[in-house]
C-alpha cells in the first residue's frame, strides 16, 4: 500500500476529484470513439507516425490549442480569486499551484508549441523544400514535447501539481519547502520537452541553411524564415543551460545534493542565475518568430514590400546575441550592487534599439501601403501600439534603480503580459488565420474572426493595464488574496472583467473553427490573400511533396516577383520525388520517455532503468535500421496535380 501512497494528491478538493473523473471519462470516450469508427489504424499510420512536416506542424498546433485552454482556465481562476478582496474561491495552496501551472503551461507547452507548429508548417514551404533535414528526428521532437506536456498535466491528478512558481526558485522548490512530487514533475516535464526543443533547433538550422530552393540566398529568405533561423540558433544555445539547471535541481531534490540548498555551501542564488541565463533568451525565442509573422502579414495586407529588409535581419541577429547578455535584470534586487546592475541595465536597454528599429520599419511599411483590414492584419495593427507600450515599460523596468520598486509587483506582471500577449499571442492568432487556408484548404470566417479580435484586444487592455497601477500601489505578484483596505480591489475587478472578455474571445475563435469547418467554401484557390512569399506558390492544402517541381527564386518575395515581374518559378520537367517513410520508432521512444519521466518523478528506480535501457536500445536499433525512403512516381504526381486543378506545374 505504501507504494501507492506516493500517488496521492497533497491537497485534494472536490474540483480535483471531478477533474479526475472528467479526464477518465474523456479518455474512455476517445478510445471508444476511435474503436467504434475504426480510426485507430488511420490515426496511427497517417498522423502519429508521420514524418511529414505539415502534419507534425498540425499536431503541434492541436496540442498548443489544448494547452492554451488549460493555461487559460488557470488564468481565469486566478483573476476570479483576486477579483475581490478576501476571496475564498481558491485557498493559498490551490492558488500557488494554479499560477505555477499557468506559467509553465503557457510558456513551454502553449507558446513554444505554437511557434514550433508554425515553423514546422511554414518554413519548408517558404524555402521550397520537400521536408525538414531530419524528418524522423522532427517527429521525435514532437513526441518528446508531447510527452513532456502530458507528464506535466498528469501532476494535477497524480501526486500533486508543482507550486513553487514557474521560476521554481530554490530553496522554496527544494524538498524542505516543496515536499510533494510536484516540482519533480516540473523538472522532468521540462527536461524531456526541452530535449525535443533542442532537436527541433538543430533540425531547423540545418534545414534553413542547406535546403533552400536554388537562387534563394540568405538575404533572399522570407522574413519568417529568417526569424525561424535566428530563433533556432537561440534555442540551440539556450536550452543546454536549462538542461543542466534542471539536472542540478533534480539532483538536489532526489539525490540529496547541495547545489541550491540551505546547508553545506549550497547557493540559492545560482538557481536564479542559471534559470534566467536560459530564461531571458527564451523570451526572444518566443517573440522573434512573432516578429517574423508580422513581417509576413503586414506587407501582404498593405500590398507592398517590407521596409528595410536588411535592417530587419540585422536587428534580429543583434537581438539574438544581446539576449544572452541581459539575464541579471531578472534579479537586480539580489544585491550585486550598483556596478553589476549598471552594466546589465545598459545591455538590457540596448535591446530597445533593434526592437525599435523593427517597429519603425513596420510603420514605414504601412506608410505607402494600401491596407486591407483582414483578421491577420487586425492583429498586426493591434500589435504595434500595444507592443510599443509593453516595450517602453520594459525599458522602465530595465532601469535598475526604479526596478527596485517594480520588481515582484503586478507592474512586472502587466509588463510581460503586455509584450507576450500582443507580441506572441496576437502573432500566433494572426499566423493561424493567415496560414489556415494553407493548412486546410479553406478560410476561417472573417466576420467572426473580427469579433474575436475585438474581444481579445479590449479584454487584454482591461485585464492588464490596471495591473500597472496596482503594482505601483504596492500589490506584489503571486498574492492569493489581499485586504480591502489596500484598495487593490477595483483594479483587480477590472482585470477580472478583462480576463473574462479575453476568454469569450478565445471561445469565439473555437466557434469560428467549428463554423468554418462546416460552412466555409472549399474552393479558395492557391493564393487567397494575394500573398507575396513562396509558400503560396503551391496548392491549398499542400500536397505531400510540397512542390511538384523545385522552384527557382530570385527575390525575397518570390511569388510577388512571379506575379508582378513575370519571373518563372517552376522550370523543368516533373521528376520522381524521393520522400522519407513514416516511422513508428519515435512513438515507441515517446512511450519509453514517458515511463522514464514518470518513474523518475516518483523515484521508481526499476522503471527508470528499464525505460532507460529501452531508450538507448531504440537509438541503437535506429542506427542498424536501413530505411532509404520511398519514391513518388511522375504519374502519381501528375494525378495529384490534376486533382488540385493543375494550374501550376
Amino acid at each position, binding site marked *: 500500500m505504501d507504494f501507492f501512497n506516493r500517488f496521492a494528491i497533497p491537497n485534494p478538493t472536490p474540483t480535483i476529484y471531478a477533474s479526475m473523473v472528467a479526464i477518465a471519462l474523456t479518455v474512455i470516450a476517445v478510445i471508444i470513439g476511435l474503436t467504434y469508427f475504426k480510426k485507430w489504424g488511420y490515426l496511427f499510420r497517417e498522423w502519429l507516425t508521420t514524418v511529414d512536416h505539415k502534419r507534425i506542424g498540425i499536431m503541434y498546433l492541436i496540442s498548443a490549442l489544448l494547452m492554451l485552454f488549460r493555461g487559460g482556465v488557470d488564468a481565469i481562476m486566478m483573476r476570479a480569486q483576486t477579483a475581490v478582496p478576501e476571496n475564498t474561491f481558491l485557498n493559498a495552496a490551490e492558488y500557488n499551484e494554479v499560477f505555477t501551472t499557468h506559467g509553465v503551461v503557457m510558456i513551454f507547452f502553449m507558446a513554444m508549441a505554437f511557434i514550433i507548429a508554425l515553423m514546422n508548417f511554414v518554413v519548408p514551404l517558404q524555402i521550397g523544400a520537400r521536408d525538414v533535414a*531530419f524528418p524522423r528526428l522532427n517527429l521525435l521532437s514532437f513526441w518528446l514535447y508531447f510527452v513532456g506536456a502530458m507528464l506535466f498535466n498528469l501532476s494535477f491528478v497524480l501526486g500533486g501539481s508543482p507550486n513553487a512558481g514557474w521560476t521554481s526558485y530554490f530553496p522554496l522548490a527544494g524538498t524542505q519547502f516543496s515536499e510533494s512530487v510536484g516540482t519533480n514533475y516540473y523538472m522532468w516535464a521540462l527536461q524531456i520537452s526541452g530535449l525535443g526543443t533542442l532537436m527541433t533547433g538543430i533540425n531547423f538550422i540545418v534545414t534553413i541553411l542547406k535546403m533552400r530552393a536554388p537562387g534563394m540566398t540568405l538575404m533572399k529568405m522570407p522574413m519568417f524564415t529568417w526569424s525561424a533561423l535566428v530563433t533556432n540558433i537561440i534555442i*540551440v544555445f539556450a536550452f*543546454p543551460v536549462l538542461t543542466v539547471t534542471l539536472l542540478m535541481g533534480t*539532483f538536489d531534490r532526489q539525490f540529496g545534493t*547541495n547545489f541550491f540548498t540551505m546547508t553545506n*555551501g549550497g547557493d540559492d542564488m545560482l538557481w536564479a542565475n542559471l534559470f534566467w541565463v536560459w530564461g531571458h533568451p527564451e523570451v526572444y525565442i518566443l517573440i522573434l518568430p512573432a516578429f517574423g509573422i508580422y513581417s509576413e502579414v503586414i506587407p501582404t495586407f498593405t500590398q507592398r514590400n517590407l521596409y528595410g529588409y536588411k535592417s530587419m535581419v540585422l536587428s534580429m541577429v543583434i537581438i539574438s546575441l544581446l539576449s544572452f547578455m541581459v539575464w541579471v535584470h531578472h534579479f537586480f534586487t539580489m544585491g550585486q550592487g550598483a556596478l553589476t546592475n549598471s552594466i546589465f541595465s545598459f545591455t538590457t536597454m540596448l535591446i530597445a534599439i533593434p526592437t525599435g528599429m523593427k517597429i519603425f520599419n513596420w510603420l514605414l511599411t504601412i506608410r505607402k501601403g494600401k491596407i486591407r483590414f483582414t483578421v491577420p492584419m487586425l492583429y498586426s495593427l493591434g500589435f504595434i501600439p500595444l507592443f510599443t507600450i509593453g516595450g517602453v515599460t520594459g525599458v522602465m523596468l530595465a532601469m535598475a534603480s526604479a526596478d527596485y520598486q517594480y520588481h515582484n509587483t503586478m507592474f512586472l506582471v502587466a509588463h510581460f503580459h503586455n509584450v507576450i500577449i500582443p507580441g506572441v499571442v496576437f502573432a500566433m492568432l494572426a499566423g493561424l488565420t493567415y496560414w489556415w487556408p494553407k493548412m486546410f484548404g479553406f478560410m476561417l470566417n472573417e466576420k467572426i474572426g473580427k469579433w474575436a479580435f475585438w474581444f481579445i484586444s479590449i479584454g487584454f487592455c482591461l485585464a492588464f493595464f490596471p495591473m500597472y497601477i496596482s503594482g505601483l500601489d504596492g500589490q506584489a505578484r503571486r498574492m492569493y488574496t489581499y485586504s480591502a483596505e489596500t484598495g487593490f480591489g477595483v483594479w483587480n475587478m477590472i482585470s477580472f472583467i478583462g480576463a473574462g472578455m479575453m476568454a469569450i474571445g478565445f471561445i469565439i475563435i473555437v466557434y469560428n473553427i467549428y463554423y468554418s469547418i462546416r460552412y466555409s467554401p472549399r474552393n479558395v484557390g492557391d493564393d487567397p490573400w494575394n500573398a507575396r512569399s513562396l509558400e503560396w506558390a503551391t496548392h491549398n492544402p499542400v500536397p505531400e511533396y510540397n512542390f511538384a517541381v523545385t522552384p527557382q527564386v530570385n527575390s525575397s518575395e518570390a511569388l510577388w516577383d512571379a506575379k508582378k515581374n513575370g519571373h518563372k518559378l517552376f522550370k523543368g520537367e516533373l521528376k520522381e520525388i524521393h520522400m522519407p517513410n513514416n516511422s513508428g520508432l519515435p512513438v515507441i521512444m515517446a512511450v519509453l520517455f514517458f515511463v522514464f519521466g514518470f518513474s523518475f518523478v516518483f523515484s521508481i528506480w526499476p522503471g527508470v532503468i528499464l525505460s532507460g535501457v529501452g531508450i538507448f536500445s531504440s537509438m541503437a536499433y535506429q542506427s542498424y535500421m536501413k530505411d*532509404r525512403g520511398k519514391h513518388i512516381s511522375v504519374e502519381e504526381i501528375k494525378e495529384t496535380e490534376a486533382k488540385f486543378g493543375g494550374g501550376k506545374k
Partner: protein
Amino acid sequence: MKINHSQPLEYSTEHNRFSILGFWIFLGAEIMLFGTLFASYFVLVDHTGNGPVGAEIFEITPILMETIFLLTSSFTIGLAIHAMRVGKQKAMITFFIITLLLGMGFLGYEIYDFFMYVHEGATIQTSAFTAILFLTLGTHGAHVTFGLFWGSVIITQLIKHGINYETANKSFIFSLYWHFLDVVWIFIFSFVFLKGMM
C-alpha cells in the same frame, strides 16, 4: 540516393552533409552545456561547507593518466578517419578499437578517482563543491561512456558492411564527438584540476 563521388565518402550524399553540419551545431549546444557546468563550478568552487576543498582530494597521477589516455585516443580516432579516407578498412577498424580501449582506460581511472573521492569523505552529497565536481566530471564521463557504446555499434557495422557512404558518415561524426570530448577534458584538466591544485 544520389552519391557524389567527387567528395569524400562521408560527405558524398546530401543526407550525409546534413548530418555532419547538424552534428557540428549539436556540438555548439554542447559547448554551452559544458559552459554552464563550468560557470556553476567556478561559482561553487569555494562553497565547500564542511567538506574538503579540491586540493585536498585531487591527485595528479590518475589525472595525468586520464589526460594522456584521452589525448592519445583523440589522436588514434583521427588516424582512423585518415585510414578510412585512404580506404584501409583493417587499419581503420584497428585504430577504432584502440580508441575505444583508451577510452575505457580513461573511464577506469575516472571511476577509480571517484572511489578515492568517496573514500576521502567527498561524496556527491557532501557539499555544493563536491556536487558540482561530480556533476561536471560525471557529465563528461557519461558522454565518454555513451561514446563507447556508440563506437562499438559503429565497429560492428564497419565489420559487417565495410566502408561505405553510411558507415563512413557515422564514423566521421563519431570522430567529431570524440575529439570534442577531448577538448572538454582539456578544460576540465586545466581549470578544475590544475587550477584547483595550483
